[in-house]
């Protein structure tokens, strides 16, 4: 970002600050809407949430059941319970898991780290590899390499995350033995970064497959659009090296549509993480969510919905802000 005059820069950061404020204000009703929808859905379900709390072999009288129901706050009308929940969330309390009684916040805190490392590395691989391959593909348009990469991109974008994960596990872990077959780290061995990385690479690669493919295809077409522009010909005519022409003149202008694609693939990343975590026994948010659903653990489902929605909304905000860093012409008013 090259903003010449200090006063201009000041003005720019002011509007940006106001923009972020306004976006965060819009975010709150969206968060409330999402959690209210999920909460409403939970009310429509046929089962009694109390059953998830009791072990099946315990037989209780109706009075005993009602007493427990009252203790858990399950006997109040739904809208009131939702408002209670909101009030507690505002205080930073997400409630307790029905199944084990642990605070939801604590459980999520344990699980969010592994998920963020999986999704973060998947996204990073997707962006870096996708852009590099896309640029190569565009510069060498119609070459054998371009053809091979295009086929790879089509295949990658058409393979569901869980099938990619299973194939990866089968080929690279079980057949070739290059990577461990799952888990966060080798059990019984003290934590080491390299051990964690060893476990992380395969699921992250399989998760990034879809990202790499879609980012690569959009990079290729955006680059092709830019490379045929007059100012690129000018740059080449000036005798600038290929590296400068492609790397700084062309890529910078191709980045805007690419950022849009990166933002648009975030939901796919979250969805893919659920499958890959369950295939690679990765103790993250995805497996926790499946657990929560299977056990009808309402407080946990609500808490996780809230956290996931927050993370996604923040990711969307970051995507929008990235535009400003790439294209100084974009102003937020």
């Amino acid at each position, binding site marked *: 970002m090259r903003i010449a005059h200090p006063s201009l820069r000041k003005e720019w950061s002011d509007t940006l600050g106001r923009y972020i404020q306004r976006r965060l204000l819009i975010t709150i009703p969206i968060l409330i809407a999402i959690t209210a929808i999920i909460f409403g859905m939970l009310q429509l379900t046929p089962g009694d949430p109390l059953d998830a709390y009791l072990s099946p072999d315990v037989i209780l009288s109706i009075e005993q059941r009602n007493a427990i129901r009252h203790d858990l706050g399950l006997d109040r009308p739904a809208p009131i319970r939702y408002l209670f929940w909101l009030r507690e969330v505002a205080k930073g309390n997400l409630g307790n898991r029905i199944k084990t009684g642990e605070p939801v916040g604590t459980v999520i805190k344990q699980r969010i780290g592994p998920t963020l490392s999986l999704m973060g590395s998947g996204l990073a691989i997707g962006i870096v590899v996708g852009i590099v391959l896309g640029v190569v593909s565009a510069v060498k348009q119609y070459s054998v390499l371009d053809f091979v990469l295009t086929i790879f991109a089509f295949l990658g974008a*058409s393979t569901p995350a869980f099938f990619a994960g299973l194939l990866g596990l089968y080929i690279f872990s079980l057949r070739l033995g290059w990577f461990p077959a799952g888990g966060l780290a080798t059990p019984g061995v003290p934590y080491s970064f390299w051990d964690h990385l060893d476990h992380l690479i395969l699921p992250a690669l399989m998760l990034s497959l879809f990202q790499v493919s879609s980012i690569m295809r959009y990079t290729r077409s955006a680059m092709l659009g830019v490379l045929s522009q007059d100012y690129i010909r000018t740059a080449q005519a000036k005798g600038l090296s290929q590296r400068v022409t492609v790397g700084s003149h062309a890529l910078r202008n191709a980045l805007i549509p690419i950022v849009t694609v990166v933002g648009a693939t975030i939901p796919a990343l979250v969805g893919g993480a659920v499958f890959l975590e369950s295939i690679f026994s990765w103790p993250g948010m995805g497996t926790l969510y499946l657990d929560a659903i299977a056990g009808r653990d309402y407080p946990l489902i609500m808490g996780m919905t809230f956290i996931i929605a927050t993370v996604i909304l923040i990711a969307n905000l970051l995507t929008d802000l990235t535009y400003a860093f790439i294209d100084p012409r974009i102003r937020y008013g």
Partner: protein
Amino acid sequence: MDNSVVKSDARALAPTTPEPLTARQATVLTPTRQALRRFRRHRLAVVGLVVVILFILLAIFAPIVARSGPNTVDLLGRNQGPTGRHWFGTDRTGRDTFARTLYAGRVSLSIGFAAAIISIVVGALLGALAGFFGKWVDGVIMRFTDVVMTFPAIIIILTIVALTGPGIIKTLLIIGLLNWPVPCRLVRAKFLSLREQEFLVAARAMGASAPRMIAVHAFPNTVDVLVVYASFGVVNAILLEAGLSFLGLGVQPPTASWGNMINVASNLQVLEQQPWLWVPAGVAIVLTVLACNFIGDGLRDALDPRMNIG
């Protein structure tokens, strides 16, 4: 409709058709015919169409092609690898994987197409309302769309299915009813661009009612956008069904679907030692999705040459 005529003239004049027109072509070059020609020239799209038709035929004629039922048990040939008798091998109860893959195609393809149709109908309706009426109607519908789009569909679907219980019809309805945001946005954008066009202003001036203007005048102009979306909608629905069934929350065994056939691979032993049980269904999904993506690309090139990128 005036609008589409103007557009097609522009297309005919544009130097996109290098080969000289024969007299016959020049006389009957309707927009549909032009689109068909452009589609036929997209080689990958044609291959995709052939693959999809082949898969549909295999699914329809499964009883003839498969040589055994999806749940027929061959007691003497259990846990076999691929043989001449069982092309894709058998599982531990002696069921033929090839037959199951074909019958699973019936379920998975039906869910894919039906869910796509539902999402297009719902999306087109909401998009038409938002784009036509604008103002607060638009505001409410689009904010709702934002909320649905913000959240990964699979998470919402997982939650609903886990709470309402699995089943073919439920899977189909849930996938269909959650995938409407994209067609909704497409139709809305198209309607917004149509709103001030002469033919709609004229229709309004002649006293056409709102439903008539939407259905008869504006909607036909969105058909091409929706046709292009349809193939991607099918892709989405097939992938979601497969994912759900893979997690055991979609189509329930013994009914085979491509997703729940892959589910056996969550057992590490099956994953490692009997790849013939789960690879065929996975390959079927990848091929179908790939083919539909190609068709979608071809349709986009054929119906909207201006969107042609790369």
